[in-house]
């Protein structure tokens, strides 16, 4: 399930698929060729039964646990996150490799990062040693040895770039008692699931792309909405604004993912995490909520610009008259049909608009050109 380099090339060749839905390719259709009609009819018929990814709902969390659903949600739009991985669920393959239950799979991004960290530490350690030597020789005024150290340092910086690419062999297998319980009849049990965030779940359910199942049976849109937002929300509820912003950018084709690591609400990817880094971080702002202090804006911006991203303030605004808002909210409360509920949500969302402001640090002396 790990997106490897070869996968990446394959995925890139595919058309933009930002929703976990099945599509039927009818490019073979030629109007004046009856044979192509038959082929197309067959294709439509064969693909007519849509299989929606199944999302389970347990103790407040929404997640996909079967490979088919996980695959679809991840590969088509990059929804969700492996609970034991950085983004895509790679725990199973990683663990197999770590416990030597499997040979020859490509390295996942977690393993590549671990490798790089290891190499960086090694590089730093060697550099420190050389620094110590240099200091000693300087004190002793030993110019011959100083030149030697200089040469070594040169060699070290030269190899730094090259080392980063070559892979180091995997270390010795160590099976912890914690791992032992996961292996049943010689086979590793998968314990990782693809967890969807609340906004993702609500968005996918709203546009009818997932089935949600709980212990008590299927979960409809209204039930999911009640679990996530409840029906007591105000027109400026921050969770509602977050959802609206999420739906807005997803509809525009962005891949939107959690931005917690950068103290933001969302990250915007042009295509998805396997392809490139996110260029933008998004902070959802209401108009009425007390705005943050400038100290906090500047602090967040420092983190965001430190990772070469642009901080976008996304203002979600509305022109409600309170009665109108209350009436939609009450209708949502009384509504028992999921389709009708979806229309009400669409109506609610259509009252909001989203505007962006880009936040940049501006230094008078440095930004003169």
């Amino acid at each position: 399930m790990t997106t490897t380099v070869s996968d990446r090339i394959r995925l890139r060749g595919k058309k933009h698929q930002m929703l976990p839905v099945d599509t039927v390719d009818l490019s073979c259709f030629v109007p004046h060729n009856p044979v192509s009609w038959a082929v197309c009819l067959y294709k439509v018929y064969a693909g007519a039964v849509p299989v929606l990814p199944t999302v389970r709902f347990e103790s407040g969390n929404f997640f996909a646990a079967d490979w088919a659903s996980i695959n679809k949600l991840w590969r088509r739009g990059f929804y969700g996150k492996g609970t034991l991985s950085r983004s895509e669920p790679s725990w199973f393959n990683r663990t197999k490799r770590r416990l030597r239950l499997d040979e020859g799979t490509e390295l996942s991004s977690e393993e590549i990062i671990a490798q790089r960290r290891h190499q960086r530490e090694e590089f730093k350690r060697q550099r420190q040693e050389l620094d110590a030597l240099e200091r000693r020789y300087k004190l002793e005024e030993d110019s011959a040895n100083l030149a030697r150290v200089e040469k070594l340092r040169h060699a070290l910086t030269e190899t730094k770039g090259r080392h980063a690419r070559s892979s180091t062999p995997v270390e010795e297998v160590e099976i912890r008692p914690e791992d032992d319980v996961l292996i049943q009849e010689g086979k590793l049990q998968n314990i990782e699931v693809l967890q969807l965030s609340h906004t993702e779940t609500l968005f996918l359910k709203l546009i009818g792309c997932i089935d949600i199942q709980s212990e008590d049976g299927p979960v409809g849109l209204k039930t999911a909405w009640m679990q996530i937002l409840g029906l007591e929300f105000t027109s400026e509820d921050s969770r509602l604004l977050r959802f609206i912003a999420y739906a807005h950018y997803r509809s525009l084709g962005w891949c939107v993912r959690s931005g917690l690591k950068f103290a933001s609400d969302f990250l915007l990817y042009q295509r998805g995490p396997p392809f490139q880094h996110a260029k933008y971080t998004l902070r959802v702002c209401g108009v009425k909520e007390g705005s943050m202090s400038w100290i906090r804006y500047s602090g967040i911006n420092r983190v965001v610009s430190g990772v070469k991203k642009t901080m976008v303030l996304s203002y979600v605004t509305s022109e409600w008259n309170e009665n109108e808002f209350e009436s939609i909210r009450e209708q949502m409360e009384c509504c028992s049909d999921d389709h009708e509920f979806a229309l009400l949500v669409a109506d609610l969302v259509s009252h909001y608009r989203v505007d962006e402001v880009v936040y940049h640090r501006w230094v008078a002396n440095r930004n003169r050109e």
Partner: protein
Amino acid sequence: MIPISIVNGKYFIFDIDSVKRVRNDHLIIGTLSGTLSILPQQNILLGLPLQLTSEEALWLTEMGLGYLIFNLKSSGLNLEPKVAGDETRLNTVESSDSDRKLEIYQSESVQSELSADLRKIKDSVGYQTFKFFKSFQNGSRYAVLPGMRFGGKYLVYNGDPLRYHAQFIVQPLDYKKDDIGMINIVNNGRLSTGVKKLWVVAGEKEDGSTECFSVEWAGFG
């Protein structure tokens, strides 16, 4: 004692020897804010006077190191000068302009009355923390500067900022009331670790002592 002038509600030291003294002996840094007469068209290099933050001015007076000077016209404060009486000592200094008299108040009672602004700060959560760092390890080892650039109230340096990097980004909080905020832990933890500092939350306990916790990225996850 170092004279601190109040102009328009801001605090200044006009005398170069005093500037040297507060910096060298007490690590009070302030900001040079006057243009240089020989290079008036630039604002990279600035000269006297040295502007102090309210915390710095208050701390200097509280420590008995400085006293406030008032120019009633430019102070921006609406105060009737309290003339003499009991133990209040009032010095009047003639300035070149006879209309602009500088009144210098040195008695403690008058000092505190004049600095209404300072009194407000005195009780603030921030000043307690400022004082905590100034008195930490028996005083004057730390320089405490405004920390907006790094997303905190103060930046704390282990010595003169020209020679040392800041060690701490400090956020003073009400011990019992203020929520630190999970998003702040993430942001400031990340920020401070990235610039090799620590983010410190500090709150004053009921007994007057200050409790601090330092936050940094744990190196994984």
